[in-house]
């Protein structure tokens, strides 16, 4: 099992009611499996799947990206700066 901390922002933070959630998951571990594990705990997240982007170590990556222990993992809802 590896430990993955997932950061939440904007409207996603309101759903999970936290800035960061710690998950224990079996490897191999991807963005997709992270999201699936989170939806089990927070079903409301599922409707965000089409619009949310995954960032690992401050870069956008596809949800198929392999996540390793120590990675900074973030779910990025549609941005609205400016």
């Amino acid at each position, binding site marked *: 099992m590896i430990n993955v901390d997932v950061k939440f*922002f904007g409207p996603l933070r309101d759903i999970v009611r936290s800035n960061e959630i710690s998950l224990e998951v079996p490897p191999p571990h991807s963005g997709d499996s992270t999201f699936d594990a989170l939806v089990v705990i927070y079903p409301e997240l599922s409707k965000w799947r089409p619009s949310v*982007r995954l*960032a*690992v170590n401050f*870069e*956008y990556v596809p949800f198929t990206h392999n996540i390793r222990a120590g990675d900074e993992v973030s779910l990025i809802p*549609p*941005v609205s*700066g400016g």
Partner: protein
Amino acid sequence: MVSISTSTINVPAIIAAVATPQSGAMDIFIGTVRNNSGARKISRLEYSAYVPMAEKLMTAIELDLRSKWSVHEVIMVHRVGMLEVGDVAVVTAVSSAHRKEAFEACRFAIDQIKSIVPIWKKEFADDGEMWVEGEHLEGIQEMKSGPFSA
């Protein structure tokens, strides 16, 4: 120079900082909090950011911009926190020899910020508060062929 700022953005200081003796043109875009969002009356906006990633992407936008246009100085600053109507939320400023480059690059900078930089805006209106849906579709498409995707 790019930054996420928790305090008031000093526009005259930004203009002074982009000016160079070689520059004949500067374009400065200023995004401010307006008092309405369609039919809704807005009292204030709260901006939040994923700061290290936002600054990293803004730096990447500057590099991308400099690869596309010949410009002198580039400054992008986005404010976070609670802002009132009229407050400056974002400034993009570009200097160049001639005006074409300054205009195009300044527009590119703010378009990219709005598309890909992880910043979120919550509106506080007369009928309650609400997260704003941004221009993410355009952004996602840019991303697929841009320098920011994996």
